[in-house]
């Protein structure tokens, strides 16, 4: 029989039992819709994490001290003091893959202005820090190389500090605040950046020359970390390699020594967090797939009922010249038609419910074309797989017996 006729006949057969066909499809519809919605939610959160990390500077590299292993004692990373200004100098002069570099030291304390005070952190950084972290100056200026040389007591503050210390509307630029009893003259204010993915307030920050923080607050020569930006996002991995090599030389490490520092790119951070959501997505999709399988079993069940019900029809079709393969195809096409129609409705429902989730719950979502293609293919395969056995049963009937079936 011609394929087009097969589809026509199968379609008519489904039309004769509309309610039953729809109920059979329902399992598939729910399965496909949930797979698509789950994948959209998973993909959406993955993308939103990626965007937020990128907004911190997608080509940013951070170098942390760590894995200091001396005399058999492993020390906490934060205590290790393997990064120094010498390293900074070495990186500055030797690296060809980075455009900006800045040391970072930080300390906590109480910021005071007039009668207001606020617990916060002070970051001792270089003049390029704003470029690396994609921070922008809202008013005033960033401190200069000269300020760093002089260890000047100047600071650039974030919006949270402005709100808490200058709540009365005083322009902070030109004012002097105190941090740990050290007076800092405010020369600039940063634009608001909001909370990052990890719930950290990125505006609760005071930037000051690292020399000032080292000498006057921490009284330490060591660097908490070094941040740099690769010339482009593409060469970030290459830059990680290069910086590591320079630091190994600078630290006089032998070939089989462990690194006593970590160089990380944002890409690594992205993949770390993406893998967490990927696991979640896999879980969600696995649960959704179960309903797809249940839907498939529903199809199989109904097809068996249908074959039994239409035994005489099968006998007749055989008597008038239908071959086994014709009968097999007829029932198989019917099963596929159910699953594919259900799949189509499911895709629409999935996209619809994804839109609903992003509109009303304001969750980040993203429907990918591959999730649609995959779930649609799975549907067709489900139809073939679960339609096969009932169709085989139909094709294997003896026409003499089938014709007399009551």
């Amino acid at each position, binding site marked *: *029989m*011609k394929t087009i*006729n097969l589809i026509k*006949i199968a379609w*008519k057969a489904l039309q*004769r039992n509309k309610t039953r066909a729809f109920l059979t499809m329902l399992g598939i519809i729910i399965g496909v819709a949930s797979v698509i919605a789950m994948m959209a939610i998973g993909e959406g959160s993955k993308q939103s994490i990626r965007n937020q990390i990128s907004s911190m500077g997608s080509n940013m590299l951070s170098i942390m001290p760590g894995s200091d292993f001396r005399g058999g004692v492993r020390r906490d990373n934060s205590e290790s003091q393997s990064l120094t200004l010498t390293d900074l100098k070495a990186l500055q002069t030797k690296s060809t893959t980075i455009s900006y570099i800045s040391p970072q030291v930080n300390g906590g304390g109480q910021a005071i202005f007039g009668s207001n005070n606020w617990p916060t952190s002070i970051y001792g950084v270089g003049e390029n820090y704003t470029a690396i972290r994609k921070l922008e100056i809202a008013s005033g200026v960033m401190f200069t190389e000269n300020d760093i040389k002089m260890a000047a007591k100047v600071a650039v503050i974030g919006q949270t500090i402005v709100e808490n210390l200058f709540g009365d509307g005083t322009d902070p630029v030109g004012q002097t605040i105190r941090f740990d009893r050290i007076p800092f003259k405010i020369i600039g204010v940063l634009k608001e950046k909001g909370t990052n993915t990890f719930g950290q307030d990125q505006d609760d920050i005071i930037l000051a020359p690292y020399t000032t923080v080292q000498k006057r607050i921490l009284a330490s020569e060591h660097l908490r970390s070094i941040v740099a930006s690769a010339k482009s996002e593409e060469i970030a991995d290459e830059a990680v390699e290069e910086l590591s090599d320079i630091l190994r030389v600078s630290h006089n490490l032998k070939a089989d020594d462990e690194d006593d520092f970590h160089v990380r790119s944002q890409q690594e951070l992205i993949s770390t967090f993406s893998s967490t959501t990927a696991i979640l997505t896999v879980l969600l999709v696995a649960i959704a797939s179960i309903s797809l399988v249940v839907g498939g079993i529903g199809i199989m069940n109904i097809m068996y009922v249908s074959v039994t019900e239409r035994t*005489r*029809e099968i*006998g*007749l*079709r*055989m*008597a*008038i*010249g*239908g*071959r*086994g*393969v*014709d009968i097999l195809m007829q029932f198989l096409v019917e099963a596929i038609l159910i699953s594919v129609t259900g799949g189509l409705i499911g895709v629409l429902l999935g996209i619809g419910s994804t839109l609903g989730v992003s509109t009303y719950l304001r969750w980040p979502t993203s429907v990918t074309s591959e999730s649609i293609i995959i779930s649609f293919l799975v549907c067709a395969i489900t139809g073939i797989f679960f339609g096969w056995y009932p169709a085989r049963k139909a094709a294997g009937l003896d*026409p*003499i017996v089938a*014709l007399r079936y009551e």
Partner: protein
Amino acid sequence: MDKTIIKIEEIKREFLIGNETVRALKGISFSVTQGEFVTIMGTSGSGKSTLLNILGCLDQPTSGIYELDQVAVKNLSKNALAKLRNEKIGFIFQSYNLLPRTTAIENVELPLYYNKTVSSKERKERAENALNLVGLADRMDHTPSQLSGGQQQRVAIARAIVNDPVVILADEATGNLDTRTSYEIMALFQDLNNRGKTIAFVTHEPDIALFSNRTIVLRDGHIIKDNPVDNINIAAEALQKLPLEEEL
């Protein structure tokens, strides 16, 4: 001489039920030439259904020769048998076996769907012609539930002739119908026979057999009688003689 449509020689059919061998046909021979209207009679258990299944290429004899339209049926594959049924045989059943909720014309078109050489246009034309021939030109879009028993059997007859078969095999085709409708159907069969159709008609009603021109009687797997009918009843005339419905 007319062409031989059915030729069977020493046909035997045995079934194995449990450990017992049931011999339904114990060596039967006859042949049917083109244009014959044969009734096959016999009580239940006489083997007439088994014979019909073999004639219809739904079943194969255990031994013996069966040639349908000069084609030896033995040793044909299942698919070849299906093709043979599709092209050379028209089936008519006691219970019509029409597809429910399917229009008359679609039911009649059905055999042609299994013949790839027939285009959809030709399929429709042939189905319309067949329905015209059985007098249902105005009922083409009716479903079986909207048709009377006689009309349903006419649709089934149209379906049996739409593929222009060499033989029409009818299995108790009037078994579910009242006398008047039976005679109407028999008039139709006689009409088809006059147009040159070869018909093999299984029945257990002797009065129906009188409308054919040859009767074969089976008993216990043997042919006990194979005679031409002397006084062939004309169904159209018999219909005239029946009391009208109002008088009943």
